[in-house]
């Protein structure tokens, strides 16, 4: 006999909605996304959900499972308490489109504000693995936007226009620390990205499915660079004098 589990899935759109109950037949190793697909194929053909890879590589299937921001394709049913229904809701920080699908287009707008990689005109394209380990850590980002979803500056305080959010601090840091990049984004980081709003709660780091140390490795170094440039003229002068 296959086992069964009950699910409560948010159904609705911008006009409103409610949690709906479904019963799902479970199997070994099943993840939340499998259950959602089963519901779609057998009970609710119009249940809206985003997914692509089913392997935590594309960052499409973000949702809140039992109140925690998760990739559904990576969340195993056997890791969730068996004595109550599994609750699946859309990410709360972004405007709802339908069911589990939200409007994340704001993120794409933020990305456009960041000047792209700009190569040094005549550098040598050779560098050691150690020099890019950290940049590669940032480039692991799959743009699931779970960090954006959980950051209180966006979630509670809705600072969307003035605050880029952790995902884009990661992107800024990746560009800043690229050995061959020549553009200067510190002014943007200081005046437009709102990095100052971040009070290092580390909630973003905790939810990142790619284990990027967003706060320690990206945000704090960015903050330091901003302080160096804009608030500490002596340090800046010394650094200039003794550079290489």
């Amino acid at each position: 006999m296959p086992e069964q589990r009950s699910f409560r899935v948010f159904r609705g759109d911008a006009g409103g909605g409610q949690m709906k109950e479904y019963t799902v037949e479970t199997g070994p190793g099943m993840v939340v996304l499998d259950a959602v697909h089963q519901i779609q194929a057998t009970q609710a053909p119009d249940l809206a959900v985003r997914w692509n890879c089913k392997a935590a590589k594309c960052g499409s299937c973000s949702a809140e499972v039992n109140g925690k921001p998760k990739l559904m394709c990576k969340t195993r049913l056997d890791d969730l308490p068996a004595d109550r229904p599994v609750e699946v809701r859309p990410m709360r920080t972004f405007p709802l489109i339908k069911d589990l699908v939200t409007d994340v287009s704001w993120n794409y707008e933020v990305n456009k504000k960041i000047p792209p990689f700009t190569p040094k005109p005549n550098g040598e394209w050779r560098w050691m693995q150690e020099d890019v380990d950290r940049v590669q850590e940032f480039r692991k980002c799959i743009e699931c936007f779970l960090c954006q979803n959980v950051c209180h500056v966006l979630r509670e305080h809705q600072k969307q226009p003035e605050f880029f959010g952790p995902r884009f601090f990661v992107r800024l840091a990746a560009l800043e620390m690229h050995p061959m990049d020549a553009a200067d984004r510190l002014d943007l980081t200081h005046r437009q990205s709102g990095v100052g709003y971040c009070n290092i709660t580390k909630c973003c780091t905790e939810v990142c499915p790619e284990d990027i140390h967003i706060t320690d490795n990206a945000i704090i170094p960015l903050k330091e660079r901003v302080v160096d440039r804009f608030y500490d003229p002596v340090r800046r002068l010394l650094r200039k004098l003794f550079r290489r």
Partner: protein
Amino acid sequence: MDKYETHESDVLVIGAGGAGLRAAIESSAQGARTALVCKSLLGKAHTVMAEGGIAAALANVDAEDDWRVHFHDTMAGGKMLNNWRMAELHAKEAPDRVYELERWGAVFDRTGDGKILQRAFGGHRYKRLSHVGDRTGLEMIRTLQDKGVHQGIDIYMECTITRLLKDGDRITGAFGYWRESGRYVVFKSKAVVLATGGIGKSYKITSNSWEYTGDGHAMAYEAGAELIDMEFVQFHPTGMVWPPGVRGLLVTEAVRGEGGILRNSKGERFMFKYLPEANKKDFAESDEEARRWVDEVLAGKKPTVRRPPELSTRDNVARSIYTEVKEGRGSPHGGVFLDISYQPAERVKKKLPSMYHQFLELADVDITKEPMEVGPTCHYSMGGVRVDADSGASTVPGLFACGEVSGGMHGGNRLGGNSLSDLVVFGRRAGLGAADYAKSAPSPRPDGREIEEAASIVSAPFDRPDGESPYDIQRDLQTAMSEFVGIFRTEADLEEGLRRIETLKARAKTVGVAEGTRLYNPGWHLALDLKNLLIVSEAIARAALLRKESRGAHSRLDHPKTDSHFGKVNLAVRNVGERMEVRETPLLEMPAELKKVYDEVETPKAVKVP
């Protein structure tokens, strides 16, 4: 009919994977007004999932490598059915495209002296795949995406194109709908570049996502373009087999490239016995020789012995695994064992991080301690729109194609890593070709009646609230294709497959939307994709029936040998008055000079392990 919005461009690119992004970047760099549409959000296309690497003869690791050897390997891997000109351009231009990605911000893994690192892969004579751990596709798509968004390309996300619009013989735009709202949209465009990827959702077990319903293949076919090599579907030898929910999910070939060993349930390293006579001498003949190759490679030395047998081409490894399982030497869940756990755990985690996590989190298997269970999974379509090698032009004026949706580059079997390079080499060329064509093409003039017809097809499932479930039809098609048009084929099976497809075509006409509105309704979306799945499935089955031989990824149990007659032809599929026609078309003749290049690449000498 309902109102629709209209957008106008010189070049419309359908698909935002590596091929589509590269095409759009090039087209807009040429000054053409360029629009880019995709079904998913930007950055989520299949390309993001590519793991192992991008093939280019940079010769950073093996100094002997150059374009000639890459060309030779690609043609040999494709069993000489490839469009030689594509294979030539690809081998020559791939290095420039890789360096270009680096100039645009990609950060590849490095060699000890700071150059782009390259790893071994099946069918490639030398270590040739530039990579970033096992997330090369992510690096590539993000690099192209960030380059593209700053170039003034108009990007339309979550928009599905259902039909190409024509003005007489030539293309004049495309019709589609917004997934979010279900509203219609018309793109008027002088030229259209198809970059829609593959067809994997025709099969039950696949590494491909919901997007791979063969839309581009089917729309090109309906617009009158020719598809070639459709019988060649690549089954990747190593997909996950357990747990059920991840069955088919890809296990990158990089595992074997890094020294992964395949064994059956008796512990035998079975690949030794399946090496084809023709290139047996390229491979190690004993466990010791293979192990020494791995030791030398791990130590960063140039290998003095031959490659392990696991690095045979994909078609061969997939068939071997299938046979082992069928003959009762499979693993508990119907696969075989793939083992990398004999290597230092830290190295495995560094070189194959996403495989490590994928198995640990989804299958409770620690690949640094125990073997994985793997089996074949439908992975890639060698077949696609016939194009001109230099410009990507199809046989329909104004229609271009690049990436997986195009055919010819890979012939009968694609080598791993040759797709990512294909995307950027021919994405760029198609972008150039389309922009160039658009310069002298007339203004787009879609025909109102054609638009109305397209709209009524799209809305039809709503008129049948009691119609069949699209999910059921898709499942039955997948079962039929896997059973009757799979890795091993026979005439009787293929005919049965075609009979089932006919029945499913009839059922698809009765498909309905049982619930929901036009607002983000996946059931409706799937109902519309079915037509495309059925067209490509039929094309695969019909071409497979006609090719009465075994070659590359196409294996006929009733015709187990290669037949020299079929070595001289590609099979082409066309829509002739609502009937699917398959015919033989002669291969393009390779010029004598290039033949010489091919022949001169000598095979390595056997090296005995003392």
